[in-house]
Structure formats: C-alpha cells, structure tokens
C-alpha cells in the first residue's frame, strides 16, 4: 500500500505529553498506518489464547461473581434482614453500592460524549474502553435497588398499567425516579456503545478466519459497508447520541442525589446535592478509567493507541474533578456553619468527630488530598504512583457514599433514636461480588470486542487529513489532472 502523504513515525513509547502550541499533539505513536491500527486492536480479539494474566484475573472475577449470585440467592430466600440495615440506618450497603456504581458509570459517557461534542480528538484512544465501563457499572448499579426493595418479583408494580386494584404508581416517589433514570441510562449508554462499535465489528467480520466468527461478527455488524452515505448519517447520529447522553449524565446523577435531597435528614437536605453528586460521580469514573487503562495498555500491547498523553490527560481530569469535590466538601462545612441550623451543624461536626470520624477524614484525604499529586507530571507518568492514587480515589468515593448514607442517618434529630450501623458478611460479600460482575464483563469485553475505536483512531491519523485544497477543487468542480 503506497501512501501519498507519508506519516511521521513516532516510536512506541514516544513521550507525546509535551504541550507545544505550535504543533498538533501526537495522538498515535508507533508505526501508525491504517493497517497497523486494525492489526493492533484486532489481534487481541483474534489471538487464540489471551495473556496468562487475563486467565488469572478472569478466574478471580468469576469466583467473585459466583459469590454475588450466592449472596443474592441467600438474601432472596431469607429476607432483607440478612443485611445490616436497621432503624435508623434503613439505607445501608445496597444504596451505598448503588450510588457508588452509578457514579463509576459516569466517566464513560462523559469521556465519550462531552469530549466528542468538544471535538477532543484524543478521546478516540480511550472512548470505547470508557463506554464499556459505563455499561458494566450501570449493570452493577441496577442490581442494588432491585434487591433492596425486598421482593423483586413485585417490581412490575412500578410500571403504570391498568390493574385489578385500580391504583397507579406515584410519580413523586424517588423509587420511580430511580427506575426511570437508571433504566434510561443503561439503555442509552448501551445504544451509544453499540452504535460506536458497529464499524469496528465490521472490521473483525472482514478479518474473520473461521465461519462461525464471520457469522457472529457479521450479525452484530449489521452488514456495515462504510459507504459515504452511511458515514454521513452515522456521524450525525453519533453526535446526537452524544448530546443526549451528556444531558442524561447530568440528569441521572442529579436524580440520584434528589433521592436524598427531597428528605428532611440533616446532611441530605441540601440544594448543592445535584452538582455535588455529578462532580463526585465523574471524578470516580475518571479514576476507574485511569485505574483500568494503566494495566490494560500494558497487558494487551496497546501503548501506541492509549499513549502516555492519554494517561496524562486522564490524570489531569481526575485532578480537576477531585478539586471540585474538595471544594464541595469544604462548602458543605461553610454552609452548615452559616445556616445557623443546630442539626445541620451537628451533622457536620459528627461527620468529622463522631464515631465514624475516620471515614470523615478518610474521604477528605482520598478525594481531596490524593488527587492533588496529579499536579506533578512525575506522578501522572509513573504507574506506581498514578495507579495507587486512582485506586485510592475509587475507595474514597465508596467511603463518601458510606458517609452520606450511614453517617447522616445514624444520628438524626432525636438522640434516643441514634444507633450505630455495622455491615454483615452478606453485605460485604455482595459488595465484593459486584466487583466480580463488573470485572467479568470487562474482561470478556477486552478479550472478544474491539477495545479501541479503530475507525475513529484512523480518522485522526495524519495521513487521513484531506488537504484543504482538495475540498476547494471539489467544490469548484474542477477535475484533477
């Protein structure tokens, strides 16, 4: 294949993090021809055997998934009493885990959708990957409200349908809001993810060597031909889905926060909650994409597509969102003091100096202090600093959900109703098991689906740029030669 425009070659591991305002940043390193991009991404799905580390991770994930199934089965047969939830902390681990996983889900859509709307070309290396975390994290999130209602086989009561009792669902109930928000989120993020994947599935179809692979990838690629008329509509549809998903990201987190904010509990009854939850959600999502991208690019040989610049940018965004979260934490204290409301003041003093003081300070450390290391390029570029920092951020966000749910509930207005919360081993097993579900799905995705959006990466290669003169000639109708 001769190339008319010879692309500059940046060796694998080329440091493309420098910001030179005079030049376009290098977004793909290595010998980046179109064929190389296809080969690098497809070879993961086409390899007869995965790397050994994949099998080890997959075995652990499957074991945790089995644990999740066992825990849910036990809970369904026995009743919600197996959890630590009890008055006054009636919302225990299920809601903590739900809000946590919804938060994790947010970065995928955000990276993909908002960066697409802002035409940030570097997103192409990581968007597929991030969208996958969204879909799988929402799947994990959806489990918890479903089992928390106690009798999931009556969940169809949430749907408005004519029934023998003559009643209709209450549209002012946060339970119904959650069902609408999460149901919409899982649908839209899956549609967005799948739509983006169709041209890449067609690549796998056209390279398939066995009949069965050809048929399966052929069915899911819908007969995609990459014609200009198809691309024309496809690009528009992708932008529309991105715009809808962006609005939805902000909407879902706000809805989840409203579940809390419409109540009277000190620590919940706050107008700052919708932006607070959204910032925290996106923060935890960036942290998990960072934590997954660092090992995945090593393990699957994708260092040229998910480059050092991608890791650098992700770390910077984690820093930005972490700083916003820190600002909200501090603002909550200021408002509690400034409100003059004794219950509100007590809730925040109790958060830092009450029986759960270590969690109160823990979230300030993990979400406020730890991301600040990303001010330093050395920390952004050193995996043994960036990876633990990202994991600490994720843990910090789980602790934040614990603080919001449990610490606010365990001491409300009346001291006689105060009580401590302790999770049972079922609670802890279900939480651990939800990670098993997430990683099982994620590892299957890494193994069998295109992990990087090939068609989008190809479009940002230097040789894909059509000289502006070409368009001019075309418009004026002059024939070449």
């Amino acid at each position, binding site marked *: 294949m001769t190339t008319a425009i010879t692309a500059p070659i940046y060796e694998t591991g080329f440091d493309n993090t420098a910001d030179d305002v005079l030049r376009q940043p290098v977004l793909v390193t290595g010998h980046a021809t179109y064929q190389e991009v296809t080969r690098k991404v497809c070879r993961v799905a086409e390899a007869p055997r995965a790397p050994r580390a994949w099998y080890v991770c997959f075995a652990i994930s499957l074991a945790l998934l089995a644990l999740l199934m066992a825990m849910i089965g036990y809970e369904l047969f026995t009743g919600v009493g197996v959890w630590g939830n009890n008055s006054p902390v009636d919302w225990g681990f299920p809601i903590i885990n739900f809000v946590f996983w919804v938060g994790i889900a947010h970065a995928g859509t955000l990276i993909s959708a908002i960066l697409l709307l802002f035409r940030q070309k570097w997103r192409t290396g990581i968007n597929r990957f991030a969208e996958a975390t969204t879909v799988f994290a929402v799947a994990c999130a959806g489990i918890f409200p479903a089992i928390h209602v106690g009798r999931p086989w009556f969940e169809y009561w949430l749907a408005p349908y004519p029934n023998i009792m003559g*009643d209709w669902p209450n549209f002012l109930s946060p339970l119904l809001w959650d069902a609408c928000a999460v149901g919409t989120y899982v649908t839209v993020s899956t549609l967005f993810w799948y739509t983006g994947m169709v041209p890449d599935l067609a690549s796998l179809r056209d390279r398939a060597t066995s009949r069965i692979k050809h048929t399966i990838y052929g069915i899911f690629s819908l007969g995609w031909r990459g014609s200009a008329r198809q691309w024309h509509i496809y690009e528009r549809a992708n932008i529309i889905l991105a715009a809808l998903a962006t609005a939805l990201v902000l909407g879902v987190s706000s809805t989840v926060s409203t579940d809390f904010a419409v109540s009277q509990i000190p620590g919940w009854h706050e107008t700052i909650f919708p932006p607070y939850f959204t910032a925290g959600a996106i923060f935890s999502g960036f942290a998990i994409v960072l934590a997954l991208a660092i090992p995945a690019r090593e393990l699957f040989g994708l260092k040229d597509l998910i480059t050092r610049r991608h890791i650098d940018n992700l770390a910077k965004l984690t820093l930005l969102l972490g700083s916003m979260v820190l600002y909200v934490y501090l603002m909550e204290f200021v408002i509690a003091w400034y409100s003059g409301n004794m219950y509100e003041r007590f809730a925040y003093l109790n958060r830092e100096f009450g029986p759960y003081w270590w969690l109160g300070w823990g979230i300030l450390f993990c979400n406020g202090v730890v991301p600040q290391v990303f001010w330093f390029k050395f920390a952004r570029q050193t995996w043994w600093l960036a990876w633990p920092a990202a994991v600490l951020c994720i843990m910090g966000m789980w602790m934040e959900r614990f603080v919001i749910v449990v610490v606010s509930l365990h001491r409300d207005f009346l001291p006689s109703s105060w009580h401590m919360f302790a999770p049972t081993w079922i609670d802890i097993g279900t939480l651990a098991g939800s990670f098993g579900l997430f990683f099982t799905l994620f590892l299957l995705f890494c193994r069998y689906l295109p992990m990087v959006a090939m068609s989008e990466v190809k479009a940002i290669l230097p040789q894909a740029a059509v000289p502006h003169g070409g368009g001019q000639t075309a418009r004026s109708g002059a024939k070449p030669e």
Partner: protein
Amino acid sequence: MASTTSTSSTTQEVSEPRLFGLLAEFSEASNLISAAAAIRDAGYKRWDCYSPFPVHGMDRVMRLKPTVLPWMVFAGGFAGATGALALAWFCNAYAYPLIFSGKPYWSLPANIPVAFPLTILLASITTFFGLWALTGLPRPHHPLFTSERFRRVTDDGFFIAIEATDPCYHTATTTELLRRLGAIAVEEIKD
C-alpha cells in the same frame, strides 16, 4: 472478478449473475475525494464512496443532503416529554388522585425527574433505529461483499462503486474514467 469464496451470505444458487457495477480502489483518502468530485461532475447518480473511516468533507463533495434524522429525534423526544407528563397527570391527578405530603395532585416541577429521562430515552431510541432505517441496515448480503478486495474497506481500503443501473454507466467508458482518476484497481462486481 467476483470471487465466490467466503462471502458474508450464502446465496450461491446463482442462476445468472447480475451485474452490480464497477468497484474501483484508491490509495488514499485525498485521492478518493478528488475522484469523487470528478465522478459527480461526470453526471453519475447511483454511486457511493467506501472508506474505513468518515473522510472529512466527503458529504460536501458528494452533495449529500442533510439527513432528516435530527427531525425524527426531535419528534421522538417530544413524544417522550409529552407522553411522560400526560402519563403522570393521568396516574396521579385523574385516575388515582392521592395527596402526598400535602402537595398538589399535579405540578410540573415535581414531574420533571420522570419526564426528563423519558424524553432522552425516546429520543435515543429514535436515533438508534432511525440511523439503521436511513442507512438501510441491517442488510446481511450486498453484492460488494462478493469482492475479496472489498474486505479491506474496514481496514485500509478506499473504494468507489458505480452501479450498473446508473444512466451514465457504460462498462468500458466508466472503467476508463475510473482508471484515469487514479484507481489502482477496477473490477466488475456480479451478484
């Protein structure tokens, strides 16, 4: 020539292969653009360009009309918003009115948390199905899939296909035109 091996579908009971048209391969995205401009000026109507990624500016060169998709999405979103609000009103104010915490039976702000996601949901579903309806997919078999060369369209191949049903089509002159425009290979596609 059209290869008979490993096509995506198995319609091999060919009585008499019908001529689909000509498939020309180009080496680069920029060549594809200039060739497309020339083919448009030559008056062809039933033709298309094929590339592994959307080539910037191609819709302008091919004079593709803006798609109606955004209007379909708007209709979907509008149906979602009005449908959700109407449903909330029907359930809580008409069919089964109950007082919750002394709030009115129906008010707009309180119903936004349901109306907003349903608006997005219907708009997104319309986008998804509208996209495939407008692009004519899913379509398991297409005459171009009989070409072994065309499999590279999802890897690094740039193609132009001119259909035999085009009024300007004439195998010899069209082949000649494509070659003159810099095609590195031209083949007849039969289905």
